[in-house]
């Protein structure tokens, strides 16, 4: 899994690619925690290049979102594809997060 960041006027875009499983999920959670500690509050997580996510990945997303909510921050997703989109749907995550088709649409949410 690789995570790249891009600062936009209203939000920080995190592009996650590869696989988010029990091995890599803690790395995601740690990155988001560090960014929150640096004062970032608005996150757009672009998952268009994420090929696979396990329940460990989902749990780390949930933990990060809870942490961000405590700081009155906002977490939005974009670009979900295939397996990842299906996982968000069956797990009910699509109901508790805002999800957009593209990064550009997601940025309009902030």
């Amino acid at each position, binding site marked *: 899994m690789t995570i790249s960041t891009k600062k936009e006027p209203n939000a920080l875009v995190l592009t996650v690619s590869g696989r988010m499983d029990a091995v890599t999920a803690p790395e995601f959670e740690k990155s988001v925690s560090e960014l929150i500690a640096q004062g970032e509050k608005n996150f757009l997580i672009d998952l268009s290049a994420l090929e696979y996510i*396990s329940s460990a990945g989902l749990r780390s997303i*949930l933990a990060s979102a809870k942490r961000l909510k405590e700081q009155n921050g906002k977490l939005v997703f974009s670009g979900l594809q295939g397996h990842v989109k299906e996982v968000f749907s*069956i*797990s009910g995550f699509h109901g*508790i997060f805002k999800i957009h088709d593209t990064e550009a649409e997601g940025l309009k949410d902030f």
Partner: protein
Amino acid sequence: MKRRKPSNLIYGVDDPVPFPTCFLLGLQHSFQVTTALIFGLIVVQGMGGSQGEAGFFISMSLLAGGIGTLLQALNKKGVGSGYFMPSVCEPAYISASLMAAKLGGLPLVLGMTALSGIFEMAISRIVHRLRKVFTPEVMGLVVAMVGITVIPVAVRNFLGITDLSPAINPHVLMVSIITLGTMVSITVWSKGKLRLYSVIIGMVTGYVISYFTGLLPAAHIQQIFGKPLLALPDITLLRWSFDSSMLLPFAIASLCVSVKTIGNLTTCQKINDADWKRPNMASIRNGLLADGLGMSLSGLIGGMGQSTSTSNIGLSLGTGATSRKIAFTTGGILIALAFFPRFAEIFIVMPQPVMGAAPLFAVCFIIFTGFQIMMSRMLDPRKIFILGVSLIFGLSVAALPQIYAGIENHWLHPVVTSPLYISTLLAILLTLIFQIGLTKRSRQLLETGKTTYEQLQDLLEQHGALWGARREVVSRAVSALNELMEMLAAEELTKEPVQLDMSFDEFNLDLVLQYTGKPIDLTGTYVKPQSLERTISGMQLSLCMIRKDADRIDSAEKDGRQRIVLHFDH
């Protein structure tokens, strides 16, 4: 059932269709259905029954076809696949029906047809267990043999041969060639929608030329107009009888029909879902039940054995309209036609060249559709022997009937006198025998909490490639296995290594995991979170994701050792 409409369809199976379009499409399909009445006529001809019986048999076949079409489209309370698949007179029943007709006339044909529907309904209940036997190769062989069985009757009529005059009749042959030539020319060289009506145009041409050349006597035309335009069927002709010697041929016929219907249902699933991956067995079960119900109903009301029409499925794909709304219109039109005796009479007086050319035209498509299905997968030596031996002995019945003439056993005789029945039985028997040694196995030890996704992916992909497993199934197996291994570690169900036994055959991929430790809880259900604050169960979330990928998950405990099975249909 959610499905994505393929882009080549104008009206998908779930789409509404404006009434005028729906009616025209229904009319077109009804024309197509009436061409299969020729198979009913072959039975009537072989029966040597009265004109009244013939008219009744044809009208009731139309009525049964209409009801069968509606039942198939229903998809309610476990009956019907929900697809548009018109019911037609089924050529697989010709052999059995002719045997019954010679033995006990129309009542025996009807009684045994009603009974054979029950066979098909019984098969529908266990169809998921028969996947190993009903392979695409067996389906293709059955379809091809259905066509091959019709050849003797069709060719005799095409050449003008009768019991009284066993020599080729040049007069009939000439009209047959023109009739078949018209159908073939329109199919091959015409443009636009004319092609859809090639059989009807060819048949009309055959009738007209037969009339002008004396093969359709004026008395037959008067016979058509002598029938009332609108009338209720003469139910005094409705009688049923049964004969135990006919059980086997009708049971085999319904087995053949079941195999063919599974093929048709699978085709419908494929053409209506852009994301289709593998057969939906629930839909196949419901579809077979409707087909069997339609079959029994046909026998009970006085019609020929009915089943789903492959050529109508081709027509709906060709026109880009597979909506079940068209099924209701087509069913309605067919039911209405049953009450027009004049319409049925047109078919009853069918001249011999048309009775030869029309089935010959259909048989060309049936045989080669069968061969295409057979060749749709790589043929290894096992499949070549299954198909080869079954085909050779099936054809031997047609080519060398005297070999089997000595078999007088009343159970065996009907089987060995039909190329279709002997081929189907042999193909199923050989498929079962060749299951021996087909399952491939492998055992591995996985370290709990240390085995990564990449390692599992390498392991399963290597075995999958070696065994010829489909990539999509292997990919789901990797996801499910990784999720399960993560769950065992996260929930601390075990710290010991997990024994993984993999087994694969053409239809199943099973992963059996055994470990010493705590069990998984398969009784709970995952509750989707409504807000961030809601706590979610880690184990239930994992199981929810495993169930997304695996077709079945089971668990059992023995002497403190846990056994979890992940099953994937292949």
